[in-house]
């Protein structure tokens, strides 16, 4: 199944900042409807990896299976114009993405994100949760097959988080491959089919949550504790 449904594949990605290697030969793949979580401590290289997949940065080595412009990308910080309304932001990016039916795409995203009643509010006046929903909506305007989300839940309270994940799971169920980063291990365990563990730019593990649990040897500790122990054993 994996071979046929594969929508994104990256091989041997390397990124250097000066002499420092932020990514050292990371490979990954994602299939239709798959939820892939990239976990790792701060500074592990998660943002670097996602922005290379998104085409914001170019890798120093390695290859991508599809042009980066074809994937949807949701940066960690909402990339929106505060002085424009929700609808104006969506319309602007739909036009820049050269979406065929601009108004249709805007209405669809307003409806899916449940922000139809806030459409004429300036983004600067929205709560963090709503701003993040608009941010994600912009990433989905062109109906991409792959959606990249960089720490999408980091700034949200538990209720907003809950709503966010319902929304993302809906997208995955509809066939979108979702790759997201998080440093919250429990979240990754709950909402991912596959986990990639990244530390100091190195890919330490790739597999299902259950497989990671087994590799960590949870032995009485909770999953997060086991994960920290796992990193420690691997020298991080």
């Amino acid at each position: 199944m994996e071979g046929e449904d594969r929508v994104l594949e990256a091989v041997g990605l390397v990124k250097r900042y000066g002499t420092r290697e932020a990514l050292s030969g990371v490979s990954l793949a994602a299939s239709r409807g798959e939820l892939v979580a990239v976990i790792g401590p701060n500074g592990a290289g998660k943002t670097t990896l996602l922005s290379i997949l998104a085409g914001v940065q170019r890798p120093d080595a390695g290859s991508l299976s599809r042009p980066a412009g074809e994937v949807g990308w949701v940066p960690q910080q909402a990339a929106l114009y505060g002085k424009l309304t929700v609808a104006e932001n969506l319309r602007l990016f739909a036009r820049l993405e050269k979406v065929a039916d601009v108004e249709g795409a805007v209405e669809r995203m307003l409806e899916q994100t449940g922000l139809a009643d806030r459409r004429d509010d300036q983004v600067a006046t929205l709560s963090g949760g709503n701003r993040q929903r608009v941010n994600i909506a912009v990433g989905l305007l062109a109906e991409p097959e792959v959606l990249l989300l960089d720490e999408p839940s980091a700034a949200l309270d538990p209720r907003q988080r809950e709503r966010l994940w319902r929304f993302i799971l809906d997208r995955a169920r509809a066939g979108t491959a979702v790759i997201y980063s998080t440093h919250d291990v429990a979240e990754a365990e709950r909402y991912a089919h596959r986990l990639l563990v990244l530390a100091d730019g190195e890919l330490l593990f790739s597999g299902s949550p259950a497989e990671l649990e087994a590799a960590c040897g949870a032995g009485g500790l909770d999953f997060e504790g086991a994960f920290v122990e796992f990193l420690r054993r691997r020298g991080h």
Partner: protein
Amino acid sequence: MRWLLLKDLRILRRSPLLAALLVIYPIAIALLIGFAVSRGPDRPRVAILNELPASARTLSLGGEDVDVARYTRRLFEAVDPVTVRTRAEALDKVRSGDVLAALIVPPDVTRKLETGLEPATVQVLYNAEDPVKARYVQDTIKAQVQDASNALTRKLTQVALGYLKLISSGGRVSLLGRDVDVLGLERAERIVRAARRELPRASASRERLDRVERFAALARDNLSLSDDVLASVASPIRVDRKVIHGGATPLSSFAVPVALTFSLMFVTVLLAAGALALEREENAFPRLVRGLVPRSGLLAEKVGLAAICALVLALVMLAALSAFVDLGWGRFPLWIAAIALGALGFAAMGAAIGGLAREVRAASLLGVMLSLPVAFLALVPSGAVSGGAYDAIRVVSAAFPFRPTLSALDAALNRSGPIGPPLLHLAVLTLAFGAIARLSLVRFAR
């Protein structure tokens, strides 16, 4: 790109405080500068060459000696006089900017004043490279020479009136050391009348004497009008002005390009820098450059945005200024060329600042901090600092759009010189700053 431009205009419209500041601030600055520029420095240095021989330093008018120095003292109070010995030295000092002007009093001044047959002429050489300075010197010297001239006129009039009174009424006068009794028309008339009475009624001489008497009466009556006639006698001293080099734009019209250039600079630099930095501050930059808009396209959009706004503002300012200053609307296409290229130069500079600063507030601060000194440097007159420092200032000024924009606008508005070179200069600066801005965007995404 069109959508980005519309987006930026919409954001600008929704930031009324910023938009108002961008309009009011430059206009206020422009007015202040116009005001400051129309006031000259205190006591300008003026070289004085006195070619009068020592023997000719007093005037002999109507037997009275007048000390020329009395009339020049007033001038020396208004300027900081530098005595020079030769014409060449005077010319040198003006050319090098050591003095703002040179006043030359030729040797024949006293002789011409004494004979009163032709006006005495003093010469003023000044460096008109900078209209602010030139106008000031011109005004100061003109006013002082006018004062001296008026005083001499009064003196001459007094002397002439004395002579006329003598002719009219007669009296004693000292001539060549001897006391002479002048008859005068009045007494002449009386003598003629008495002589006439002694002649026989039918005598032909009686009628001839009648004519002499009528002439004397007529002359006396008309001489009493001479007060007014003499008062309107032309100034005895004439000022012969000579520009050493540089264009000569009168100050009031020079203030217009200065004010315009300042406004252009502020609006354009701040808008381009702010709009570019905003893309990063709102984190939109990475989203835009991953295939949606090329980096150069984004730069072009920001430069275009700033230039369009600046063009509109400049035209509004010109329309408003035309109420106070006489502007030659016939050269409108040249104005547009000067404003447009100036705006492009400033916008490219603003984009470079916005690219380096990456944050709206930092970009604005950097924009102001960089623009103001450059503008003031460009306005430093040549005589104000030493030659070496002035050369350094010229080099720095040439690296920024202020000076060429000012030259282009001055050329377009006041025909102060050819407009081609400053326009070309601006085109080069636009490309150079555009390249810097483009380089600054390479690492902009993070």
